[in-house]
């Protein structure tokens, strides 16, 4: 108990926990739809492309969070647009944008005169990095993501079930797709400081995938996904503090372990 008090006396740990608690439901609910719509590779692509946005922020000397949000939203919608209109599959579009955005990022960092940038922290998460400003951004954007998913839940569910049937039944399929890509990009960017760009895509899949192993109803599935995300972030942050490891890595490892446990439980269930 004393150890817990010690941890929460530290401002950076309080901030990290606040961030983790706010991010968990956001990532869990988004991952629910990522798993249903099989968009996990889109998640990977959008997360990596946020790196280009961060580097652009450093290059221009403005908030990297803002440029990352704009960049990630633009890239995710471009992936969606090309996937729908081009002669390419979304998969190919992701492969191109992913590499292009990362390369742009490297060039921007090379051109900028800031050499003390904590790139490692952005890539793999840094427990020390969360400021009060970050908490406000997480609360605002995370709140927006959760409220809008709540309001459009049945439409998103229908489109995830069968795109063409939903289209014929009058659902605004294209709007819902781009809307989902936008909130996916927002979720990636608000998670990047604590979980990291490279690792956040894991949390866009694992909570939903883990929950789907032990239930076939959506309300319990979302509840379990939130529980998985909360356990992983809280446990991962504690472990990150004691072992002095990148917070993103410990969170993702813990969530993967939970996934494998639920996977085995799921096998025994059937």
């Amino acid at each position: 108990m004393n150890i817990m008090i010690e941890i929460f006396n530290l401002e950076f740990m309080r901030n990290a926990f606040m961030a983790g608690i706010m991010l968990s439901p956001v990532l869990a609910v988004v991952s629910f739809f990522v798993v249903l719509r099989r968009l996990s590779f889109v998640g990977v692509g959008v997360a990596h492309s946020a790196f280009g946005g961060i580097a652009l922020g450093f290059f221009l000397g403005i908030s990297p969070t803002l440029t990352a949000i704009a960049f990630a939203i633009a890239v995710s919608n471009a992936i969606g647009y090309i996937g729908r209109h081009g002669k390419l599959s979304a998969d190919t579009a992701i492969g191109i944008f992913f590499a292009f955005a990362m390369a742009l990022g490297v060039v921007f960092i090379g051109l900028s005169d800031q050499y003390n940038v904590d790139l490692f922290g952005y890539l793999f998460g840094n427990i020390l990095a969360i400021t009060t400003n970050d908490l406000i951004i997480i609360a605002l954007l995370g709140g927006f993501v959760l409220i809008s998913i709540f309001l459009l839940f049945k439409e998103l569910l229908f489109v995830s079930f069968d795109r063409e049937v939903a289209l014929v039944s009058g659902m605004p399929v294209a709007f819902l797709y781009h809307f989902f890509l936008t909130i996916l990009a927002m979720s990636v960017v608000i998670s990047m400081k604590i979980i990291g760009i490279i690792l956040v895509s894991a949390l866009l899949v694992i909570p939903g995938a883990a929950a789907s192993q032990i239930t076939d109803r959506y309300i319990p599935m979302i509840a379990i996904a939130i529980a998985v995300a909360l356990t992983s972030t809280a446990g991962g942050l504690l472990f990150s503090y004691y072992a002095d490891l990148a917070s993103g890595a410990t969170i993702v490892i813990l969530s993967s372990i939970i996934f494998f446990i639920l996977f085995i439980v799921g096998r025994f269930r059937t």
Partner: protein
Amino acid sequence: MKEHETDIGNKKAVYAELQNVWVSYYNKWVLKSIYLKCYQGEIFGIVGPNGGGKSTLLKVILGLVRPQKGVVKLFGHMPDKHNRLEVGYLPQISKADRSFPVTALDIVLMGLYNRIGFFKRPGSKSREVAMEMLSRINMADHAKKPFGMLSGGQQQRIHIARALASKPRLLVLDEPSTGVDSVAQEDFYELLAKFRDEMNISVIMVSHDIGVITAHADRIACLNLEIHYHGEPDSCFEPEIMQKLYGKNLNVMVHDPGCATCSLMKHEHND
């Protein structure tokens, strides 16, 4: 109900009509000079080999694919997102994810989402309508079952209930026999005929299974890039037409089309 073009000598409304429709993908024609008509209250079957343009034809009727040339009419107008709402669409059941975390009732409720509107949850009234649809297909006991746990035939009936919940005038079915065992198929087509008679709806279905189509459709079209036949089921079996559809080495199993279709054809002459 809206006014529709009617044929001379036939008082039935034309629900779907294609006039000289041409569609190409990547500079290759997949539909050539298609003319067809589907009337109110009939089961219209489109049969042909895989890759013969059947799914594209359905998408043209639904307005999801725009033809390069020709006129498409759905309930007398160009198909768009408004008149498309009067169509119930049934995909191939294999397309639906077997582990999708919803119940049978949830699927039927999806048919009502458009009417419920944005930002609202399905209320008790919607649930009543959905349960009534489930009773009509004898699936009320399965309402709370996970959709993925149902058999292919049951899933297909749930889809019918979903499509009918939105009170369509036309059902469009893509390969309804796929993934459904033959006993369930018979039940399914009986159900279709029942809804055709009770609700006076039309059905357009495509299949590569010529036996199924000829046994259950009121009128058929044989499609392989072009329409090779358009009319009542039994005379589709001219060797010449069959060869155009399936090539010279055709080997198609047909279960006595004559007797199975005559009762259906009588139905067409009732009015």
